[in-house]
């Protein structure tokens, strides 16, 4: 059984339908990349899975139970954690406090403040610094660390490389690589196709609210994905199914 399964999900921003009938699943231990142009609905989809955005149709199942109507904080307690786009740290609070906040759900697990600091050594010296004063890379590390502090069974990463220097991106992905090596289940949004293909077992490409291509990372060619990305061959899941 899949850890996370999404079935015919519709999500709206007012009149705009951002996600249209999307279905997919993520198995335990998988690393799945979600790619697509700006406005394709990736962030909305991730936020809906985390419970930060209400869905208007379809359902979300996590570990077999329907969580479509479950509040976000309860999903965290079940083991679902999102690193939101733009990091969204509590800027007036210190790194340590940001990490400690995430213990609220009380989910048992191996992650502690010290372990996060070991995983992201750059944060060690900034432990007592207010998050508003951190560099972009440090902020992103804190945001990922904060999500890890909830001891998630699946980690949703939304564009962790956004607005970071190339060096900082490498550092952040090094820690993502470490998480993958420990068998974590990860669903991540990434604009950089090379990176997506490098880290993911499976790749899904969204276009205008649909998933237009999905498959194993090694089976898909760059051309297939680029075509889907730009919509050269419009084929939606529903059309393929019929």
């Amino acid at each position, binding site marked *: 059984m899949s850890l996370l399964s999404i079935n015919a999900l519709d999500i709206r921003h007012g009149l705009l339908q951002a996600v249209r009938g999307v279905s997919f699943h993520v198995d335990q231990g998988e690393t799945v990349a979600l790619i697509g142009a700006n406005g394709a609905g990736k962030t909305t989809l991730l936020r809906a899975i985390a419970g930060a955005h209400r869905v208007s149709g379809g359902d979300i199942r996590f570990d077999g139970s329907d969580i479509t109507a479950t509040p976000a904080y309860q999903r965290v307690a079940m083991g679902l954690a999102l690193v939101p786009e733009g990091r969204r740290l509590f800027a007036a609070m210190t790194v340590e406090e940001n990490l400690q906040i995430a213990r*609220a759900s009380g989910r048992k697990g191996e992650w502690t403040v010290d372990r996060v600091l070991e995983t992201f050594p750059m944060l060690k010296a900034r432990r007592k610094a207010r998050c508003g004063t951190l560099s972009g890379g440090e902020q992103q590390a804190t945001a990922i660390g904060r999500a890890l502090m909830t001891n998630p069974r699946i980690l949703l990463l939304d564009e962790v490389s956004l607005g970071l220097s190339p060096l900082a991106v490498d550092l952040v992905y090094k820690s993502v690589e470490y998480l993958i090596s420990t068998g974590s289940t990860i669903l991540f949004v990434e604009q950089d196709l090379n990176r997506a293909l490098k880290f993911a077992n499976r790749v899904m490409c969204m276009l205008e609210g649909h998933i237009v291509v999905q498959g194993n990372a090694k089976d898909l060619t760059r051309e297939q994905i680029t075509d889907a990305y730009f919509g050269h061959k419009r084929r939606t899941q529903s059309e393929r199914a019929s």
Partner: protein
Amino acid sequence: MNFIGGIIDGVLLGGYYAMIACGLSFMFGVMRIINLAHGALAIVAAFGLWIIADRWEYDPFLALIIVLPVMGVIGWVLQRGVLERSARSGELIPILSTFGLAIVLENGLFEYFGADVRSLAPYVGSLSYDSFDIGGSYIGELAILTFVAAILLLGGLQLFLTYTPLGRQIRATAEDPDTVELVGVNSRFVNSVAAAIALVTVGLAGLFLGLRTNFDPYSGSLQLIFAFEAAVIGGTGSLWGTLRGGIVLGVAQTLGANIHPEGFLLAGHGVFLLILVGRLYISGPTLQTFLRSKIGGVFRAS
């Protein structure tokens, strides 16, 4: 009255203002809600203590055991019933709804208790007029008790916010209620607890208000003004600042009264205005853009 004595009295009076302002400052600074029913709620607590003291002859300090939990429940209900709903409709609505609530409370109290002036002082023996003789100048015991209580309350709350998990959650929820849910915090619950805590401090404010002065159902508005001045002078969001603000206000009032009998209120409001205008002047452009965006937003939304 000499100058030093005036300063000491003013500082102690500041403790009283900080006590009164604590709940307001907590809601304003931490939860970002301007509670205009603050004064009326303190009077509700004072009447609660008075009833218990009058009917059952309980010491008002003992009556806190009943009144503080009740105030906490009122805070919870206030958050769920009024503040949470009105906060969804924009920034002006909570101000208006708490203003309306103040009117309802005041008139409700008037309906039930009438216009008689009450005080808690008769129920605590001679505490409210006893004083210590320190080097020839007399300092009221109640004033010192109030000051110490204010320090304990504000300091305790500050420590609670800084070092406990719930305190951290309250601060984080105030900063970003959406994101806090994503890290597993039930923001609705946290806000309700915070409102309950704020109202418990309002209950304490009611006790010291009733011990220090006479009150009637409409006494809340003047208390609200002093509390507001203390909170604003001290800078919002800082509980220690509220103590500082209360002391500045108290000292200004006592020294003002030394100069002229009418100087009490005048000097207090004068210092408040000076500090306010000074701040506006210093933070000029930032504040203008802030106001423009806020007020503009309000008008666009309506």
